[in-house]
């Protein structure tokens, strides 16, 4: 049985009597917008929407999924998600973020297995020019032992052990102080080294040094060698005569014969370490479903178990068996009925637990999704694609965007061209805390901000320009809905919008701009639903 069906079986089984409240399958309109946002990080164009909705092929959903997964834009979307997951939007330090993001993008283009990505990130030391981008994870944290230990726990193991720094976690029995320091022990001999000639910072390591820790509650002292959670202690081998490949000094970063730090990655990704695959299974689920089977994503422990333990185990096992093929898992998840449920409630008066997956969750668009979707809606992406295609064709007359390599080239060019706009959205909409918080400054940006105002001015081939040429108000309304909300308006909605536009008489463009802006500010646009 395909995975997505097994997922549905387990979900339905756990719903019990509540299954009568399960929402129906999403409409094609709902599905189209949702899957576009979840796979390529932006809404479809109005034209794409119209085409999909008109298509009568019963297999069109699965085909759409496969089409979207194949686009370079899917790799870009995963890059965005992984970047935030791994870096928490830390500012630039030592390594250029753009190069790191490019590394993630390329990794996702080739569907690099997650365990391989984790290994590369955790073993990177920044000394090799070509591989330097991958060292951002460790270097941007300055290899601060506390920050790095905590983040390795949260991001790779699904455990936030911060409180365990000073004592066994006061309320979570399975987070022990030695778990925390067991991870630090991998790192403690390593240090930041600044090359006096080049000025670049990389990671060096000494051949000695141990980790001791004291509980502030019990005052007991303990020490630990590198040890990942409950796995075996990793003892140093008997030291060779020569401890170093390169001795550490003012001019050289230390490279010991035996590196404790390099033992970290194999331990973390080891099949013996179930936390590694449980964590990524949970996070991948959360990516498309809107919440984790363990929630919060970094707090799995005995008193905060998964809502569906068997399901989480199944997903984790699948990942292991598939060699950590994230995209394959994503594909199965979005083909499930669970994913494809409508977000409309059957009975909106009922208070139903989100853990029952009876309906789809509203997911606020990430800053990147919001930026790219806004640009898509107003026609910025299309015109940028036209521009960049022309440039690329000039350079190489044989340019064919259906060729994968060239499609990637085009995507990169458009991405670079429009990134500055995305950065503005990130500044305003990125939040440090979990959960959705809508601020007045965000609302003011959407309502009055100049960036969007400029986009709403009629220009070559953009939405405003196109609509300005359209005679009938009904056609304008139709196109507005398709372009902005990826669906046609209902008859009632059509009426409302026509009345709205009609209020502006001859100032057609103003009316269009106001309608566009209102829809861009609407909840339906702001949320993935």
């Amino acid at each position: 049985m395909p995975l997505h069906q097994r997922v549905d079986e387990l979900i339905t089984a756990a719903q019990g009597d509540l299954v009568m409240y399960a929402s129906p399958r999403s409409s094609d309109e709902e599905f189209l917008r949702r899957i576009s946002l979840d796979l390529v990080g932006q809404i479809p164009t109005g034209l794409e929407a119209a085409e999909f909705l008109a298509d009568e092929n019963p297999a069109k959903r699965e085909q759409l999924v496969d089409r979207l997964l194949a686009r370079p834009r899917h790799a870009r979307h995963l890059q965005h998600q992984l970047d935030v997951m791994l870096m928490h939007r830390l500012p630039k330090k030592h390594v250029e973020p753009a190069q790191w993001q490019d590394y993630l993008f390329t990794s996702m283009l080739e569907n690099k297995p997650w365990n391989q990505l984790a290994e590369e990130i955790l073993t990177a030391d920044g000394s090799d020019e070509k591989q330097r981008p991958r060292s951002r994870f460790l270097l941007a944290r300055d290899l601060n032992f506390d920050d790095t230990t905590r983040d390795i726990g949260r991001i790779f193991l699904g455990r936030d052990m911060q409180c365990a720094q000073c004592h066994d976690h006061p309320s979570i029995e399975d987070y022990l102080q030695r778990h925390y320091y067991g991870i630090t022990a991998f790192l403690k001999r390593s240090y930041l080294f600044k090359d006096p000639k080049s000025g670049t910072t990389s990671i060096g390591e000494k051949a000695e040094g141990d980790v001791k820790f004291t509980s502030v509650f019990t005052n007991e002292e303990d020490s630990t060698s590198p040890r990942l959670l409950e796995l075996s202690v990793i003892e140093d081998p008997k030291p060779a005569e020569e401890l170093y490949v390169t001795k550490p000094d003012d001019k050289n970063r230390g490279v010991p014969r035996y590196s404790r730090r390099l033992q970290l990655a194999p331990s973390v990704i080891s099949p013996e370490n179930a936390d590694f695959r449980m964590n990524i299974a949970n996070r991948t689920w959360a990516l498309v479903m809107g919440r984790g089977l363990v929630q919060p994503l970094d707090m799995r422990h005995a008193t905060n178990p998964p809502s569906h333990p068997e399901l989480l185990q199944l997903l984790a096992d699948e990942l292991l068996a598939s060699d950590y093929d994230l995209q394959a898992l994503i594909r199965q998840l979005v083909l499930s009925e669970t994913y494809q449920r409508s977000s409309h409630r059957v009975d909106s008066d009922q208070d139903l637990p989100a853990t029952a997956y009876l309906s789809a969750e509203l997911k606020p668009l990430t800053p990147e999704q919001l930026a790219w979707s806004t640009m898509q809606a107003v026609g910025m992406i299309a015109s940028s694609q036209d521009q960049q295609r022309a440039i690329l064709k000039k350079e190489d007359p044989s340019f064919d965007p259906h060729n994968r390599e060239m499609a990637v080239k085009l995507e990169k060019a458009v991405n670079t061209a429009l990134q500055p706009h995305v950065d503005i959205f990130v500044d305003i909409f990125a939040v440090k805390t979990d959960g959705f918080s809508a601020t007045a400054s965000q609302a003011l940006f959407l309502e009055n901000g100049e960036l969007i105002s400029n986009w709403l001015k009629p220009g070559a081939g953009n939405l405003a320009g196109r609509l300005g040429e359209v005679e009938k108000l009904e056609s304008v309304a139709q196109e507005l809905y398709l372009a902005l909300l990826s669906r046609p308006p209902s008859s009632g909605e059509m009426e409302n919008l026509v009345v709205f536009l009609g209020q502006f008489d001859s100032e057609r463009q103003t009316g269009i701009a106001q309608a566009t802006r209102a829809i861009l500010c609407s909840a339906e646009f702001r949320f993935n639903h």
Partner: protein
Amino acid sequence: MKRNTGCQSIDHLLSRRNFLAGTTAAGFGAAAAMGGFSTPVVADTLKRDQKRILQVYLQGGVSQLESWDPKPGTEYGGPFQTIPTSVPGVHICELLPETAQLMHHLSIVRSINLKTDDHHQGRLFMEKGRRGEGNYPYVGSVAARYLAPEDSPLPSYVHISTRGLEDDTAAFLDARYGQMKLEGVASPANLGEPGQLAEKGFSRRSQFRQQLNQQFTSRRPKALVDSYDASFRQAAQLMARQELFEKQSEKELDRYGRHDFGRFCLLARTMLEEGSTCVKVTHHGYDTHAENFNFHVEQLGEFDTPFATLLGDLQQRGMLESTLVMIYSEFGRTPKINHRYGRDHWGSAWSIAMGGCGIQPGAVIGATNANGTEVSDREVHGGHLFHTYLQALGVDSTANHDIPGREIPIGDPAVESIKELLA
């Protein structure tokens, strides 16, 4: 923590009008009961009866030994002296001379034991009246909910600060009662042109947007969308009052001080006068693990004049009797002084000062022992204080939140208000 829209939280909100139709006014402020039924005469009464809160949050943990519960000459007393205040027999630290002269408007609780030394936990407990990460609204949101008039011209809960995380303050209450963070006195960006709100284009668009949202939520959970809507309402309120963020009066700045905290206090007075129900001002920072004494000289030195000016102004404008004032932190500081001349986190025996609406002024509630190492009398925690704030404001904190079909007590039912503190 992600907002929990699962079964522990509430997703069904009726408008206040609907609720009020089905409940008595007993236990709730007159304003709350009358919302939506006001006649012009009643409107005036509303304004007079309008209750407010001023929260002054000394972020990081102000030392109680360097403020409200000094113990000079004792083992851990530190180097500061005490000064008498306008309340006979009550002394506070010499670092608060102007506040000392207004102590007859304030009372002190010296016996707080939160049983936590954690910034985050301490702050949550002091704001929500409940220990831990549970989904409960902050006192500012509760006040906004039950005291703000329906037609509040400004966001009902405003936080003036250039620091801090985005707190999720409204919990299961309507998002409009959530904290709106102002970046100090800076004019929010993108306020648009003055008078824009009145323009036809804008108001049409606004109506249209709200229509769209109503349709969107007709069969979907409302919490997130309400939160989103609230941000637009707050944006509009700010757009309507752009002049609030223009240059502050030189004359007033002479009195309040030109540094950040002075400006924040002046803006706080304005926001309270102009209609916000809860205004919170954060003064930063007090987490003095090193050089505790020099830094308290500096920080309380900065705090004293603007706060005293604000308190004095509220009193002079006749607002103090309807405004609850509280000065608080997330915990106090250790009696023991460390090797860096610092004091560390100390949740087990510390103080808060409060006054104004419904509070018995000039009182000292509770005590710590001679050395300040533990509470010796009338131990209270965030739960007791929470009840006290709300009772002082005329909100029955022992009642349940007005969410039909749900029974969530406003205050922690395991404890009561500090009755001797209530006027």
